[in-house]
C-alpha cells in the first residue's frame, strides 16, 4: 500500500490563441494578421525556416512555430518581389501553425496576404531573436512537459520542498497547518500538480481553483493566505523530499540509520523518499523541520549517518580506546 504517484499527463496541443494570450505581455506581441488563432501547436521546439525559404523542404519541421529573424527577413529582402513571393509561398504547401517575426522586422503586405489567405497567423515582436526564442522556448517547454497530479500536501520548509503523502485522513493537512503556524510556507494542499522541468527537476504548484485554501476536518474550508498572511504562502516550489506518513506497524520496516537512502520515481525523476511512522504523541512537525534541515546539511556535504558510521569503524579498529566518556572532567569540577 505504498505511495504511488499519479498518472503522467502531457498536453497534446495548445492553440495559437492561447500562446498569444500568455505571451503578448512578455514578448510585446503585435498581431499582423487576425486569422488562425484556433491553429494547434503540438511541438515544444521552434523552427527557423531559412532553408525552407531557399527551397530545401525535405526535412522541414513545418508543424513547429516558425521564427523569422534577421536572417530570414534579409534573405527575403535580397530577392525581387516576384521571387520573394514564390520563396515565401513554398512554406504554405505545408500546414504551419504560426509565424513570429522578431527584432521589429516588417513583412511586405503581399507576403502577409499569402499568410492570411492560408489561415496562418503572423505576429511581430520588438525583441531580438535570441531573447524571443528564449521566452518562447521556455513557455513551450513548460506547456508540453509531463505533469502529474498527486494527492498530498506541499510545503516549503526552510527552503526545502517537502511533499507529504499518505492515506486520506492520516493528518497531512494538520501537519501542514502546524508548519504554516511555525512560519513555513504553504504551496498546495490536497491536490498538488507536479511538472517536470528540463531533465530531473520537479516543480509543484497548487491548482488555480484551490490555491491556498485547505480543508481541516471538523472545521471546514479555511483560507491560509487570509489567516496567516502573504508570508505563509508561495505559488510554486521545487519538490525535494517526499515524506510518506504511515501508521506505525510492528512488522513494517523503517530505516534506523539513514544510510540506506531510498528514492521514489515521480515522473521518472528519482526523488528522496522518507517513510515516517506516526503514532500518538509524536511531533511530526518538528521531525519535518529536521528532515528539511538534514537535507540541507547533506546538500552542503555533511551526512550525519555516514559521519557516525565512520567514527564507529575507527573506534572498533582501535580496541583500547573503547567506551571513553565524551569528556574527562577536571578534578573538583562538579558542573
Amino acid at each position: 500500500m505504498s505511495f504511488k504517484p499519479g498518472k503522467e499527463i502531457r498536453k497534446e496541443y495548445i492553440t495559437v490563441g492561447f500562446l498569444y494570450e500568455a505571451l503578448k505581455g512578455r514578448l510585446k506581441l503585435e498581431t499582423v494578421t487576425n486569422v488562425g488563432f484556433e491553429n494547434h501547436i503540438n511541438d515544444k521546439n521552434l523552427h527557423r525556416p531559412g532553408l525552407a525559404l531557399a527551397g530545401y523542404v525535405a526535412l522541414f519541421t513545418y508543424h513547429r512555430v516558425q521564427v523569422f529573424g534577421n536572417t530570414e527577413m534579409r534573405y527575403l529582402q535580397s530577392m525581387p518581389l516576384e521571387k520573394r513571393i514564390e520563396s515565401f509561398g513554398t512554406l504554405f504547401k505545408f500546414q504551419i501553425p504560426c509565424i513570429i517575426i522578431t527584432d521589429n522586422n516588417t513583412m511586405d503586405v503581399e507576403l502577409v496576404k499569402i499568410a492570411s489567405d492560408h489561415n496562418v497567423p503572423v505576429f511581430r515582436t520588438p525583441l531580438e531573436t535570441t531573447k524571443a526564442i528564449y521566452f518562447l522556448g521556455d513557455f513551450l517547454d513548460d506547456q508540453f512537459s509531463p505533469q502529474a497530479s498527486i494527492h498530498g500536501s506541499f510545503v516549503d520548509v526552510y527552503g526545502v520542498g517537502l511533499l507529504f503523502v499518505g492515506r486520506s485522513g492520516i493528518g497531512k493537512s494538520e501537519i501542514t497547518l502546524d508548519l504554516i503556524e511555525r512560519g513555513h510556507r504553504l504551496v498546495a494542499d490536497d491536490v498538488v500538480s507536479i511538472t517536470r522541468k528540463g531533465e530531473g527537476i520537479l516543480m509543484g504548484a497548487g491548482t488555480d481553483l484551490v490555491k491556498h485554501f485547505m480543508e481541516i476536518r471538523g472545521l471546514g474550508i479555511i483560507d491560509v493566505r487570509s489567516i496567516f498572511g502573504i508570508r505563509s504562502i508561495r505559488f510554486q516550489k521545487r519538490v525535494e523530499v517526499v515524506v510518506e506518513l504511515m501508521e506505525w506497524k510492528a512488522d513494517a520496516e523503517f530505516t534506523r540509520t539513514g544510510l540506506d537512502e531510498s528514492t521514489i520515481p515521480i515522473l521518472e525523476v528519482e526523488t528522496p523518499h522518507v517513510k515516517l511512522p506516526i503514532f500518538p504523541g509524536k511531533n511530526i512537525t518538528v521531525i519535518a523541520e529536521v528532515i528539511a534541515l538534514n537535507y540541507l546539511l547533506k546538500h552542503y556535504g555533511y551526512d550525519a549517518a555516514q559521519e557516525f558510521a565512520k567514527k564507529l569503524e575507527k573506534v572498533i579498529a582501535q580496541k583500547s580506546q573503547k567506551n571513553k566518556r565524551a569528556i574527562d572532567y577536571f578534578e573538583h569540577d562538579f558542573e
Partner: protein
Amino acid sequence: MIEKTVTIKNRAGLHTRPAAALVKLAAKFQSEFFIFKDGMEINGKSIIGVMTLAAEQGSTLLLKFVGEDEEISSKEIVGLFERGFDEA
C-alpha cells in the same frame, strides 16, 4: 528470561550495517532485548545503543531476552550473530 553469550564473528565487527540489521530484527519481537558488554547495559532495540558498544571481531556479548516471545526472539537474534551478520 533467557540469557545467551555470543561472539562477534565478522571481521569488521558490529558496525553500522549489522547494528541496523540487529535492531530491525529485534523490533519484530515483543520481548525486551538487552546487551551487556564491558559493564555497559544497553537496549538492543536502540541503534545508538548498539553502536555505542563498538564491538570488534572476537569480543563476547551477553544477550538477555525478556517477554512472551523470548524463545523465538533469542533464537533468531543469536542466529544473526552466528551467521556473522551475513558478512565475511
